[in-house]
């Protein structure tokens, strides 16, 4: 910034959206505002994989594995894919890692900017819609193989419950009940969640469920990383309640992961869900 006086556009009353301001003042900084040559760019950049989220009584948990892949190569072992979006929400990313991380940064700034200018936070649905708009702007790049598909979860202070939103590449926004997963290992993770999820989970048990689900995803999907025992790399787990969001300390995730792995030593397919059919009755 060469001229130290505030530019006139900064002093002009207008939108409280940082993205709109950026589009006006520095459009080149927007992640989606980039011209790409023809052809697929899918193989150029690392991809992030599985994210799971589940609600419990009084909050929501989101967790992601730590692997980024480029084709058959593991591009990074300890990438972070679950980020706090603001105090009461978190966003997890699947798809092109570079674009997704930039989109998360823009989304974080967007929420904080609105909060500072308006003096109040956006509603949960408002936040989900803003994320939707960011993804929609990325459609052109998604069609060339650089898709970003996030999962958004947070504690809705008005509804007093945890809520989860999933998206498609066109910006479609879908509210999920109870649990959801995105990314290459999401089918396997969702299968595990279906069998392990209970309505009466507390925060601690809910964390166990998502770590189990990530283990199952890594078990069957080569692009999802399981707990790395030799390097002590474990999933990123974000727990959000009415008191705000916290990332669980690596030590406590490690404890849960060790416990999960100990169980898998006995039974590699994980805990067996109970059958409630009439045969045993």
């Amino acid at each position, binding site marked *: *910034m060469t001229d*130290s*006086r*505030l530019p006139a556009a*900064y*002093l002009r*009353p207008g939108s409280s959206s*940082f993205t709109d*301001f*950026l589009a006006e*003042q*520095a459009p080149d*900084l927007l992640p989606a505002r980039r011209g790409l040559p023809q052809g697929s760019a899918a193989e150029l950049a690392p991809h992030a994989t599985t994210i799971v989220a589940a609600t419990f009584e009084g909050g929501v948990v989101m967790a992601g594995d730590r692997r980024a892949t480029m084709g058959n190569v593991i591009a990074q072992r300890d990438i972070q894919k679950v980020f706090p979006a603001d*105090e009461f929400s978190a966003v997890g990313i699947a798809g092109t890692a570079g674009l997704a991380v930039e989109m998360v*940064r*823009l989304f974080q*700034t967007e929420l*904080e*900017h609105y909060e*500072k*200018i308006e*003096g109040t936070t956006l509603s949960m649905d408002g936040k989900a819609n803003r994320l939707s708009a960011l993804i929609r702007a990325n459609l052109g790049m998604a069609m060339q193989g650089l898709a970003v598909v996030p999962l958004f979860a947070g504690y809705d202070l008005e509804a007093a419950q945890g809520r989860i939103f999933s998206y498609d590449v066109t910006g479609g926004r879908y509210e999920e009940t109870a649990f959801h997963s995105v990314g290459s290992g999401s089918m396997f993770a969702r299968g595990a969640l279906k069998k392990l999820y209970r309505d009466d989970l507390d925060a601690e048990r809910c964390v166990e469920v998502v770590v189990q689900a990530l283990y199952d995803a890594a078990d069957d999907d080569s692009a999802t990383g399981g707990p790395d025992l030799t390097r002590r790399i474990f999933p990123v787990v974000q727990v959000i309640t009415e008191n705000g969001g916290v990332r669980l300390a690596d030590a406590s995730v490690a404890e849960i992961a060790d416990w999960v792995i100990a169980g898998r030593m006995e039974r590699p397919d994980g805990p067996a869900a109970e059958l409630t059919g009439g045969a045993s009755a």
Partner: protein
Amino acid sequence: MSMPFYVSPEQLMKDRADFARKGIARGRSVVAVQFADGVLFVSENPSQALHKVSEIYDRIAFAAVGRYNEFENLRIAGVRLADMRGYSYDRRDVTGRGLANAYAQTLGTIFSSGGEKPYEVEIFVAEIGDDPSADQIYRLTYDGQVADEQGFAVMGGQADVVAAYLQERYVAGASLDEALGLAVAALGHTSNERGEPQDRVIPVEDLEVAVLDRTRAQPRKFVRLRPARLETLLGGRGPSTPAPPDPDDNAPGTGSSDAFPDDPADPTDQTSGGVSPLEDPLTGAPPVAPPPVAPPEDDSGPL
């Protein structure tokens, strides 16, 4: 065509300064106090929605007195500047000094340009560091001057009375409740028409209090203290029953009783003299100051 009457640059600047100062003196004071864990802002502001103290960035806060629309404009510009810089570089690259500099340039340019009315505002930009020695309070005046304040700073209506009270009692490294008690007592310490000091206890509902607290776990260190929290922090205070503030100066936009009396019907009503600093009261034309000494015409010189 009528000749614009001559106003000397000194007089022009003085008039503009008087105009801005008068606008600022109408408002109530804002106090910023450094304490052990950061910087505390206290102001008497019955409105719960129109803030005088706000967050700019992780470790930077903004406080202002004067005309609301003008400082709100500056605040939003500051948030945009900080967020833009933090987004395009990194969160650590947003500094209070850079922001204070941008404000100073903006206010200074507006003050000295003939075309715009000077902003009737005074601003604090405060930034906290990792320890008290790295804390900064910048004070910016309507003409773009920057001062680096140490310990405490006061601006607004009765700034001198409040500052004198703080000067006597301020100690560095106080705890939050001590600093808050001192700041609130200082704001309640005013002088009446005869210049005699009088103390009153300001109700917690009328206080706007915010802190930059370096002990907060989140990266964003700014937090507002709500009346319930203030009640516990302040504890039993005041020698007597709370004297409610003068009902006249509770309404937004009205002057406190000690400010220069202003007659809105009379545009020439100025304490500094009979000439309006901004415009000719009859024609509404802005005063045009010709250059103090016109250079002699020189036809022989090169183009």
